[in-house]
């Protein structure tokens, strides 16, 4: 389809009233940090610690959160959540969290992607964004994307040191990962799945998880 490419590009240049940009002009554009070539305008956040601001954003969109002091506490917290929701102590767990003692907390865990048969999925967030209470999850062998969307209950482990103030800081960190910085998918998740497509009535759990619970580990 290279013919299509040249055709569209030629039409653009005709409309812009110029030919193709020279190598220097292109290099100058590539050297910019973005369209406005200045630091992004970052909204000022409400007062409080990043964890507090994050919690406010998350709760605004019907997410819930519990705070833990160590990663070891995660399985017991997940067990408590499942029991509290009247669910069997079973969960599909991301390989990144495989080494935790799930059996010790009484949880029958299956490690890896899900095909939809699991009520609860547990993943590890790469970053949390205080501004909006959002979680940033990267796809990869250690973190299957299906866990984020197919289970009814999505539980996400977030380490306090991975909390950033704005999404832009996550992009800067992603660039630092190097040439293959962008994984197949970056999921920025802000609350459980919802729809307002019937009479503009908000209903949680449209196609994705009906509830989202964050386990913030200090």
């Amino acid at each position: 389809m290279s013919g299509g490419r040249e055709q569209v590009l030629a039409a653009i240049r005709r409309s812009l009233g110029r030919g193709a940009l020279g190598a220097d002009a292109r290099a100058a554009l590539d050297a910019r940090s973005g369209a406005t070539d200045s630091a992004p305008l970052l909204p000022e956040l409400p007062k409080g610690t990043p964890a507090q601001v994050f919690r406010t954003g998350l709760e605004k969109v019907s997410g819930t959160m519990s705070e833990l002091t160590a990663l070891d506490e995660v399985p017991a917290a997940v067990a408590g959540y499942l029991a509290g929701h009247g669910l069997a102590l079973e969960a599909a767990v991301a390989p990144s969290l495989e080494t935790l003692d799930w059996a010790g907390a009484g949880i029958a865990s299956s490690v890896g992607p899900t095909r939809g048969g699991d009520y609860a999925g547990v993943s590890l967030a790469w970053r949390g964004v205080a501004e909006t209470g959002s979680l940033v999850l990267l796809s990869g062998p250690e973190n299957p994307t299906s866990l984020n969307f197919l289970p009814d209950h999505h539980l996400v482990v977030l380490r306090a040191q991975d909390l950033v103030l704005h999404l832009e800081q996550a992009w800067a960190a992603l660039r630092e990962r190097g040439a293959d910085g962008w994984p197949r998918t970056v999921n920025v998740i802000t609350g459980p799945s919802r729809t307002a497509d019937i009479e503009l009535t908000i209903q949680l759990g449209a196609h994705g998880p009906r509830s989202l619970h964050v386990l913030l580990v200090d």
Partner: protein
Amino acid sequence: MEPLSHAFKERSVWALQDETLQVALNRAKDGFAVKRAKAVDALPEFEALRDRAVAIKNHTLENLDHYLERYADAVERSGGKVHWASSAEDARRIVVDICRASGARMITKGKSMVGEEVGVNGALEEAGFEVVETDLGEYIIQLAHEPPSHIIVPAVHKTRGQIAELFHQNHEKYGLTRKLAEVPEMVNEARQVLRDKYLAADVGITGANFLIAESGTSVIVTNEGNGDLTCSLPKVHIVTAGIEKVVPSAEDASTLLRLLGRSATGQDMTTYTTFTTGPKRPGDTDGPEEYHVVLIDNGRTTMLGDQFREMLRCIRCGACMNHCPVYGAIGGHAYGWVYPGPMGSVLTPLAVGLKEAGNLPNACTLNGHCAEVCPVRIPLPDLLRTLRHREYQLRLGLKPMRWGLAAWVWFTTHPRIYRLGTRVQARMLALLAGRKGRFRRMPLAGSWFRGGRDLPAPQGETFMAVWQRRQRGRK
């Protein structure tokens, strides 16, 4: 889709008389405006962000060839494939060919306005594929065999009773025979039916809210999670996107995201903002094996070169229609094509021609509300006026209207005669109206009064006369 915009007047009358539609529209009317206002008021930086957004879009459009090439090269580096479509026909053919080559049978789709614009569904169905829309609103209108009536909430014109009936008729084949009444149970039933479709689909097609040039990433914004299931479960993912969707960097996309959710639904951030770059990587346990992007021109390069370039800044938030009194009264279907409301009244004539859609720019009160709320400051009323001007120059309007305008021009360019005429008219009409102060009918203007409207009578003096009297009094 075949445009029906030539029948705008008839369709508007139907819409005004459709009681069910009026119930649905009244429900929607204030909801969106109030939610947007709250979200905007809570962000002091909103106006400054709008300025940034305008700058981002303008810069990208001025260098569109460069950023598209950069984007396409990055996609190819990540293992994806980019296809370029000059026309709607090209786009349909490319999508059908990819689906055929992959041996697909069942295709799931996330909501894509450009997909509606070029008619992807029709082409795929004609080619023998089963196509399932997965956004709940799109799914509902697909069952009803209707086009979307709003770009964010496509089934906003439907009541829950109508939707219950549609589900009842269409879900029987899945063994779901109970007639539903409540919203939660309807959402649940659709979730159940569509879950099986996601898992069985061979190809997933989504649109894109943004394309990031730097990394070759496509961004989709959803609340339901349907777009994610569509792009991560099937073995082929196709992205359909207009060429104006590209932005230089992820930071630029983030600025626009702060405006998009707030302007569309009053959300600070939509639930799922998903950035996809290429097919699954070595070692990945899920994700598609093939990743295709179809970049669609379909008239956009023409807009880039004329006075409608600013329209290419549009991020499809729907705020303009949510604040439009005309849209609020007649809904989206009356407009007769894919895009309704103010943005649709600009885009439709440009896409299907003024001969077909000349009525749309005329169905505007020029109140300016759409431009006030547009996150990327598109001067929609000015663009609509430009289209009216073009229509007049092309002699496309109805003859009585053109004659009327010509007469008006003559009077307004002869101010003495104009003033005399209006003075006589104002006095006569005031006398004729008598004490009631209003008219119920008038010769030659019968249609205006249809449906119970009346016309307040002039007070007997023209504005100019009152003004002059006051000025004299002041001296």
